[in-house]
């Protein structure tokens, strides 16, 4: 037998590993579950060419031309006029809230000027915080408008057809006029990093107590579950804020990300978001038997969070079922808040619709955690 490598000894270790793998059901589940989740998410949910983007319409000139224009835009499949606003201000608000991706404004003298060949202005404002979400829609815009006009400019008006576009199409890329991707990514990263570290750290913190046997001692003392939970979570809120400070400084100083909104408001939203993630971590820690399982659960939660929240891929490009899953994740709502506050300068009123789902999530996860945390060893 070779003194340096013995096959029977190697086999002994190999067989032992397989037996242990079989015993750890969660690891086994990961081996099968992770590829399946990845396949489903990447295969079905992710779409880098989002269509049917919600748009608001402000029509100050009801005419055959404006109707045709709207129809053409919808036919291009990129635009879906979900809102009709009576004023530009109202439409801008929808844009600010993130309810629509685009606003199309047809001015009151549109058809008159068009018929005179005066090239009326046509305004399309886009929420460009995520340049990849609007990119393709804007790229096809010129062509779509031209086709719509060509169809309507018949008879005596056909003379307007050749040459340049008969309308003066103005595209406004709001909130990120230069379409810089990192303006979108860097604030988003804040949410991603917090999700990862907050969940992992709390999940490990409790599991460590159990793994090292210190849990028994802790349970034998008069300390209450809520005290343990609050005491374990609070330090990580501070850790979370440290990370935020770091990311924000880098965003401003290194990446030049504009900070339009209020940082105080952002801090408020951060408390809720961090607490929500910590509750998830705490819940995991009550389920996981050891630190490895806690890590695996964290990963299980983190993967869909990253892919379905709109961090990596446009949220509106995903099929409806994926959007529903996305809506249930705190990161999705936080991304809207952080991008809204930093890039759009959103205030409290604009972020509340995104803040309460995170709060609700925190309550549910916190309740589950407290219910699962037992004061006895039963």
């Amino acid at each position, binding site marked *: 037998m070779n003194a340096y490598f013995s096959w029977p000894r190697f086999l002994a270790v190999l067989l032992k590993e397989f037996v242990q793998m079989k015993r750890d059901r969660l690891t086994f589940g990961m081996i099968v579950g992770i590829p399946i989740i990845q396949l489903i998410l990447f295969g079905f949910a992710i779409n880098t060419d989002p269509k049917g983007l919600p748009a608001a319409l402000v029509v100050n000139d009801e005419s055959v031309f404006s109707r045709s224009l709207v129809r053409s835009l919808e036919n291009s499949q990129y635009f879906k006029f979900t809102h009709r606003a009576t004023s530009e201000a109202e439409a801008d608000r929808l844009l600010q809230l993130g309810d629509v991706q685009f606003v199309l404004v047809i001015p009151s003298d549109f058809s008159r000027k068009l018929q005179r060949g005066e090239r009326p202005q046509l305004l399309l404002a886009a929420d460009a915080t995520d340049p990849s979400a609007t990119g393709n829609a804007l790229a096809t815009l010129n062509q779509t408008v031209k086709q719509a006009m060509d169809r309507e400019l018949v008879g005596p008006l056909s003379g307007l057809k050749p040459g340049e576009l008969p309308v003066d199409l103005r595209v406004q890329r709001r909130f990120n006029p230069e379409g810089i991707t990192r303006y979108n990514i860097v604030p988003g990263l804040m949410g991603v990093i917090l999700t990862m570290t907050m969940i992992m750290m709390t999940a490990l913190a409790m599991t460590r107590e159990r793994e*090292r*046997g*210190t849990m*028994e*001692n802790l349970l*034998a003392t*008069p300390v209450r579950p809520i005290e343990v939970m609050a005491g374990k979570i609070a330090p990580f809120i501070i850790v979370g804020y440290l990370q935020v400070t770091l990311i924000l400084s880098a965003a401003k100083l290194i990446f030049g990300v504009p900070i339009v909104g209020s940082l105080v408001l952002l801090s408020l939203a951060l408390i809720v978001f961090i607490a929500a993630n910590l509750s998830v971590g705490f819940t995991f820690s009550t389920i996981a038997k050891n630190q490895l399982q806690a890590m695996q659960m964290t990963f299980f939660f983190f993967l869909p969070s990253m892919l379905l929240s709109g961090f990596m891929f446009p949220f509106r490009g995903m099929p409806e079922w994926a959007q529903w899953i996305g809506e249930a994740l705190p990161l999705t709502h936080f991304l809207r808040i952080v991008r809204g506050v930093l890039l759009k300068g959103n205030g409290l009123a604009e972020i509340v619709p995104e803040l309460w789902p995170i709060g609700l999530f925190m309550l549910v996860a916190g309740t589950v955690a407290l219910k699962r945390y037992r004061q006895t060893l039963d």
Partner: protein
Amino acid sequence: MNSAAANAVVSPSAEAVIDVKGLTKKFGERTVVDDFAIRVNRGQIYGFLGPNGSGKTTTIRMLCGLLTADAGEGQCLGYDIRRESQQIKRHVGYMTQKFSLYEDLSLAENLDFIARVYDVKDRKQAVDKTLERLGLTARRTQLAGSLSGGWKQRLALAACLLHEPKLLLLDEPTAGVDPKARREFWDQIHDLAADGLTVLVSTHYMDEAERCHALAYIAYGRLLANGTATQLIQQSGMTTWSAAGPDLHDLARELRGQPGVDMVVPFGTTLHVSGADATQLEQSLAPYRERTGYRWVRIEPGLEDVFIGLMNSAKDNFQ
């Protein structure tokens, strides 16, 4: 036999610190503790004996509220064990079988944490006093993880005593600790008991069992016998003979299975032969006692003999 321990048994009229009846705990289908009753008086050192997996730890955990009993009733320190575990926890010092303090905290930090959790008054002084009392002051800044077994056990005891409990529940506190440290530990326990603290301690060591005021022997989740060490030996009705001579191993092999011979145990240079039926044992041994080169003496059975005898008879009842 330690006669001082035997004399110290408190009369039944004394104040009961633990008084439980019918205690039962099931894990799934398995009954781990079955209809268990125990009464421990104030100031007593009560020993818990029994083989591994007999339900000692489960019973201790039920007493301090770490596990909820499926059936049974009783009180611990005057609090109902099923409903008032929160109050019980405040006045009990529980030392787990496995070291369960934080290895990445120093001794002082560990004790400070425990003191805060129990809301100990004058925390700093209490920690200093406890460190001093157990001779840990010199090591106060050392990390608990770097301590050896004996010192860890001392630290654990310190943590149990910090909040001045009325009852100590010690689950195999001296497992893996050297004899000197064990002896010192037991001296501590006796000092504490003399001050009025009640101690329930589980152990596998017979010398420790003999240092207890009273003993309970558990096997298969049931209480098989209890009383003082002397009482247990008397109650067992066991007769033991000691044989000294050559080739004890062969002798033992011959003796096993003879009528009346329940146990043959080698003790170094002697062989202990025990049986419940004294006459039959004597008859069986008669031919061997004639053999030359052997010296036979009738001795008082040891606690270990009694317990193993109990175990063997219990096996017949439960399996």
